[in-house]
Structures are given as C-alpha cells and as structure tokens.
C-alpha cells in the first residue's frame, strides 16, 4: 500500500513513539477509519443478506425433498408437485455453452484486433462500439431476438424459432463486451518489448499473437471467459424472451427449452407455497454458481501470483 507515506502514529502505544497529534484527533481518525471500513463491509453484508434472505426462503423445499432430488430430479412439474430442476440446469448449461462457443472467438478476436492490429483511428471506432454494446440493456437484446431473430430462425428451420439456437446468438453477442474488455486488458499489460523481440526474429504478426501473446495473456483470457460464463448463466430477460420456456430436456436445438433464470420469471407471478419456495431455491443455486465462478477467478489469479513469485 502506501509505503512511503509518513507514518502518523496511532498514538498511545508503549513503544514511545513521538505523538504527532492530539488525542482527540486520534480518536477522530480512528472513528473515521472504522466508518469507512463499515462502508466497505456493506458489500460483505450484502452478500450475507442475499444468502440469508433468498436462502431462507428457498431452504424448506430443499430440506423437504432433499438436495439430491431437487438438483438431480429430472422432472419439473409443479402442478404434480415435482420439483426436479435438472432440466432447467441442463437448459442453462446448454444455453451458456453455445453462447461461449460463439462468443469467445468473436470476443477474443475483437480484443486481439483492438490491441494488436487496429490503427488508432480504427480503434476509436471499435472500442467505443464494444463499450456501447456493453451498455445496451438486456431487454433490448431480448426484444431484438424476439422480433427479428426468432422469425428468421423459424423460417430457416420450420419450427417456431424458439430454442437454444436463438438464445445462443443473442447471448453470444451479449457476452462479447465482457470477454473482449478483459482480454484486451490482459493483452495490453504485456510489455511491448516482447512483441518487438518476436518481430525481430522474423515472426509474422499472427505468429506473434498465437505463439507469444496469447499464451502470455492466457490467465487473463481464462478469467475473461469465466466471467463471460457467469454473465451467460445469469442472464435473465434476453434469454426469457427467446428460449420458449418448455421446462423439459430439449430434443434438439430449435425446440423450446427453459433455463433456471427464465423459469423463475415465468413462474413467479403465480407460484405459491412449495412452488414459490422452489423458485427461491433455484435463485440460491444461481447465486452459488456465480459466486463459485468468481471464487474460481480469484483462485486462478492467486495461483498465478504465487507461481510468478516462485519463479
């Protein structure tokens, strides 16, 4: 932290330091510091409260039927009191996987383009474009998917146009800014000297990118992808509007399916009793998954720092 800041003594210790301030200032300073700490702690309180309130609402059902049959149950049929969310988990995974498959090359390609290839003029168009893309609300993407993409896919496949494919396209473009920004940051933090060394050895730009830069930025790119995953799994409105909401295992990619997020929104207006509890249970599952991904990113970062230090 601030290593070269003159240490203003926290007065009163027995080490005999020179007291540079009066007692009242000391108390005031400590009180202020604790107030700031309290504010910083609000974030922690937030997470705790979310666990507490959402978890408390969702727990009874999971305790009742057991975590195994909740998470692993293959049939979601609240009218018959069946609360197995496996089809929904599967739907979330399918939707996320396809979005990542489509979005990652697009995002990483764009990031590499921005960091290595673009002239300043081109960069001044593309980078704001990516930022703007990040700012478009998910309802608008969902709206676009519903009104524009769905009929196109319906005509192309002869179905209704709701399904995994539609969700993949919409979600892919939504996670591009997340992945691209982080990847670009990672690439930008590689010292220019490395590139120059590579060119000096006669490498083409692509060889430099492929063999030198991407491996060097590998951790940052991994982080970016994991956060993109989190965004894809947690996306609600856009997915809801294009996925078709059939809470079963989809028998194809152009048939309706459902995800954890979309199912909650569909059912919430009328769910009661156990059904409502199950929805809160699904919310906690989502929260745990997203926190898990964050933890993964932090773990990887810590792993890398310790590896760097050991070198």
């Amino acid at each position, binding site marked *: *932290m*601030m290593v*070269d*800041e*003159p240490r203003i003594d926290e007065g009163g210790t027995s080490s005999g330091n020179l007291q540079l301030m009066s007692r009242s*200032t000391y108390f005031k300073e400590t009180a202020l*510091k604790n107030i*700031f*700490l309290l*504010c*910083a*702690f609000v*974030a*922690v309180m*937030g*997470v705790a*409260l*979310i666990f507490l309130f*959402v978890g*408390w609402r969702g727990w009874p059902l999971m305790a009742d039927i057991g975590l195994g049959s909740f998470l692993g149950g293959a049939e979601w049929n609240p009218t018959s009191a069946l609360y197995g969310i496996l089809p929904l988990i599967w739907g979330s995974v399918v939707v996320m996987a396809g979005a990542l498959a489509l979005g990652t090359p*697009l995002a*990483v*390609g*764009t990031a590499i*383009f921005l960091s290595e*290839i*673009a002239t300043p003029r081109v960069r001044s168009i*593309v980078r704001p*474009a990516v*930022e703007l*893309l990040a*700012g*478009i*609300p*998910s*309802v*608008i993407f969902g*709206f676009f998917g519903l*009104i*524009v993409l769905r009929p196109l896919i319906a005509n192309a496949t002869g179905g209704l146009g709701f399904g995994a494919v539609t969700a993949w396209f919409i979600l892919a473009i939504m996670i591009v800014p997340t992945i691209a920004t982080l990847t670009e940051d990672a690439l930008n933090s590689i010292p220019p000297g490395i590139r120059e060394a590579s060119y000096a050895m006669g490498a*083409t*730009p*692509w*060889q430099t990118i492929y063999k030198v830069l991407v491996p060097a930025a590998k951790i940052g790119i991994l982080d970016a992808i994991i*956060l993109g995953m989190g*965004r894809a799994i*947690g996306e*609600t*409105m856009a997915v809801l509007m294009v996925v078709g909401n059939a809470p079963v295992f989809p028998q194809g990619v152009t048939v309706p399916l459902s995800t954890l*997020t979309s199912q909650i*929104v569909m059912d919430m207006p009328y769910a009661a009793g156990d059904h409502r509890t199950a*929805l*809160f249970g699904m*919310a*906690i599952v989502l*929260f745990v998954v*997203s*926190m898990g991904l*964050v933890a993964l990113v*932090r773990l990887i970062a810590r792993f890398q720092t310790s590896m760097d230090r050991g070198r």
Partner: protein
Amino acid sequence: MNKNLTNSLAMAFLWIAAGTTVAVLFAVIAYVVVNGIMVITPEFIFTWPEGVNAEGGVWPTIVSTLYVTGLAMLIVTPIAILAAVYLAEYAVQGRLVNIIRFAADSLASVPSIVMGLFGLALFVETMGIGFSMLSAALALSFLMLPIVMRTTEEAIRSVPKYIRWGAYGLGASKWQTVSRSVLPAATPRIVTGIILATGRAVGETAVVIYTMGQAINLPLTPFDSGRPMTVHLYLLAMDGINLPAAYGTALLLMIMILAFNLGARYFLRRNRKV
C-alpha cells in the same frame, strides 16, 4: 502452410471478428432507431399511456426510470466512495480486504433475477416497504455498489503521490489529506464512475419488476411505485400488440443510456486536470 498465408488468413479472421461485433451493434441500434424514430413525438414523451394497449405516451415510465435510478445513485454514492477510501487509503493487504473484494466481485456478478428476488424478500416483504421506488432503489444500489467502489478506488489510486505528500508535509492528518486533497483531485473520475453505474441501473429489468411492481404511476414519494421504461418495454414486447410503442420506448431507453455514457466521457475529458 506458408507462414505469410497463415498470417493473412488470421488477419482476415480478426478483421471479421471485430467487424462482426461492430456490425451487430449497428444492426441492433439501427433496428431500434429505424422502427422507433417515427414514434418519438413530443406527445409520446410527455403524455400518459392510455387505452387498451398502452397507446399514448410513456411519460410516467420516463419519470419512474429517472426517479428510481436517481434515488439509487443517492443511496449508493456515499457508501461506495467511503468504502473505496478505505480500500485505497487505509486497508492493509490481508484476509479482511480479500473478503471485502470477494464480496464486491460476487455482488457485481449476481444474476439480476437473484437480486430481484432478494429485494422482494428483504425490502418488499420482510421490511414491509412494499413495492416502491425505495425498495427498488435499495436493490439497485447493491448492484451499483461494486461498480462505483471499483471506479472510485481506481480514481483515488491514480491521484499522484506528490499531492498527498504536499498535504502531509503541511501537517495535515490523514482525513484532512484525503478529504481536501485526494478526493477533490479524483472527483472527475469518481463522478464518471457514478454516471456509468447509473447508466447500468437504467437498463435493469428483473431487479425492478420484483421490487416496484408494474403498475403505471407517477411516483412522488419514495414509497410510491411505478413502472420504469425497461419494464414497460418488456411488457409491450411480450404482449406483442402495440409494437410501435415498444420501439419508441426502446429508442428512448437507448438514447437515455447513450446520454449517460457520452455524458460521463465528456465530463471526464472536460475536467481532467491530471
């Protein structure tokens, strides 16, 4: 394969990637603009929705959006700035700071539906505030908190050390230094961060549906409810009957967010002294 050929192919791919990203952005924006521009008249902006399918205008939704995000901004700003002050100036690298940062990152990646249900469970039901601007603003501030914390912390850290040294050299206490030298120097970036976070809040849908309800209303007090533009757009789109109004709402929403984004950027450029 010849390395230059590979290079050319790869370059082509990269150009296509970047081009596709820009093209899709352009397509979405163009689609909304082209279909919505006809609908945007002064009547549309300033009158109420009326009739069976929300014909008429969207005025109360505009007010609701601005009201709730403004309220959220008021709630989150002091807490986030002070929190960032702690992280940037006082914190010692250790378990406590790690926990705080992990919590902030987790809040930043919470799925919006989870935040919505949380707001419903805590603010609307348990605390009894009911469907209101306040409940929604509180939920939104949890969403905005990590963003403003991070940008403010970066802003504070980017203040050059010599500004602090000057203050300490004159005998200032830590708080005096922070409040009178560091924070003012960091203000442009801090404000930019707040504006960007507010822009994000403007686009939220799931969070506000569960904390504010969906009844169309002109909010006067924080305990009133209302319907923000995002929810209005969602309902119009799902209903599928009054698409022109949906396009108009979408366009207004995008204009508002664009204004926030550009405003933040412009503010930063104007005020950058460092």
